[in-house]
């Protein structure tokens, strides 16, 4: 496996000249970027700017048409399954299994990821993740019995329990009210503070502006340099 050893530190993600096309339509054009371990980063841009594609590439759901991606110093190649095991995703629409309780949702995801985990270990990690996300008392509740904010926190707990190197969140607050959006964001920051790299794709300008964070702006598949005006990404 080809390894890239960064100088003086440990970038979690490195993209080098990454291009991606859906058929003939380019979705990303020569993207170069680096994200440090434990960094909390917003990925912003209008619709169809390439945010979701970038997340899919990092999750291993899509392959770059050109360019290379390193995750924790390891080139993402054909072994996309091993990539998925190190990356967790939180979706706008939660993606929870309705027939399983909150605890079972997390346990199921953990066991599916790694069949060699013992039940006791799975249960321990699931309960810890629920407690970390403030849902310890709702372990036996089904997703339909939870509020929108709780459902999203459950989705984060599921992602967190897998102990990922990289946590990707695609519009995690889009379906939430302001209070719940703040709680979810605070939770994601807490996860980043513990050392997990967190990338949040969002349209929410208020959320981004609320606290100083690194912001990567995408427009028409390209990374917008930091010194360009914000209007270019926020127009959509």
């Amino acid at each position: 496996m080809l390894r890239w050893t960064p100088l003086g530190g440990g970038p979690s993600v490195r993209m080098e000249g990454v291009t991606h096309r859906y058929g003939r339509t380019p979705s990303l054009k020569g993207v170069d970027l680096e994200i440090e371990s434990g960094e909390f980063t917003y990925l912003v841009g209008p619709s169809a700017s390439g945010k979701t594609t970038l997340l899919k590439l990092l999750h291993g759901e899509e392959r770059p048409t050109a360019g290379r991606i390193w995750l924790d110093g390891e080139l993402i190649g054909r072994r996309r399954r091993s990539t998925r095991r190190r990356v967790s995703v939180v979706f706008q629409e939660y993606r929870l299994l309705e027939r399983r309780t909150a605890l079972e949702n997390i346990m199921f995801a953990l066991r599916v990821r790694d069949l060699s985990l013992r039940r006791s270990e799975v249960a321990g990690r699931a309960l810890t993740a629920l407690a970390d996300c403030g849902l310890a008392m709702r372990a036996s509740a089904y997703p339909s019995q939870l509020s929108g904010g709780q459902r999203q926190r459950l989705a984060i707990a599921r992602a967190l329990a897998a102990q990922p190197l990289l946590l990707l969140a695609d519009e995690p607050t889009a379906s939430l009210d302001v209070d719940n959006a703040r709680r979810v964001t605070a939770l994601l920051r807490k996860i980043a503070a513990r050392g997990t790299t967190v990338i949040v794709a969002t349209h929410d300008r208020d959320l981004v502006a609320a606290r100083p964070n690194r912001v990567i702006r995408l427009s028409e598949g390209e990374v917008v340099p930091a010194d360009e005006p914000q209007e270019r990404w926020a127009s959509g």
Partner: protein
Amino acid sequence: MGVRLRRTLVLLAAITANVVELIVLDAVRSWIRHRSAHAPAVGSVAMALFVLGASAVGTVALQTVAREEAAQATLLHVYLRDGDTADQLADLEGTLLRRPDVVSVVYVSKADALREALARPGMADLIDQTEGNPLPAAYDVRLKSLAAVESLARELSSDPRLAPDQPTSYDAATYSTLQRLMQIVAITTLVVISGLALIAAGVTGGAVRAAAVARADEVQTMRLVGATDWMVRGPFVLEGAVTGVVGGALGAVVLIAACRFLQEEAGVGLGDVLPGLGVVVLALLAAALLPVGACMGSLSAAVALRGKHW
């Protein structure tokens, strides 16, 4: 070494437990949840497997009869002309015994032939109507195969030492009719079973595919949280297997009931109604329908899901 072995065993136990929980139990639970959707497939499989079981029962009975017939058919009666001398008979017996396809040669005198004939129902009246002993002396020649019977009968057809009207007991028409009949039965059974198996496979595959479509969101979520392709497909293939097993069990019950009905109607033992078929053989045949159903169901499901992407 002991520690490594223990670790390996613990790892294997964990993997087994997870596979059973995530794939096997999930499939069974899902099947029970969607049992009404699987009902037509169960019915089709049961019907196909009942016909398969009935054909197997029929085959066992036919084979038993055929074996008995074949044993009888490899015995060729070589009828002797009245008035053959002892030298002629010794010469003929020597010729027969030298053939490599002959197993044994037994001389049956006219008196022995009459005694055997009188023992058969209805023959005594026929013999009484004739003067003296009308039956010829014979050599009962046991041959290794049916083909040898035909070959020897042809060779002896013009032998002057044999009865001129009917030198041997060989009847070509009867043999060919029997063989043709058995071929027709075998081909018809094969066609019917194949047709029913195809219908059952189609219905089972359709039910599994419908279940997969109904659970598309759930499956997509499984994929996104890291489930591999076989973990996603496994429960559906097992659902097909469960359909096959349930259908097989149903087919087996109907098969046993049908055999019992036949037996009670005939008022005799099972082996008398269906030669060669005892209780143990019937139980084994019925039990075999379950694994056959499982294979049929899982294969149908696997084929139905081939090329499906979530």
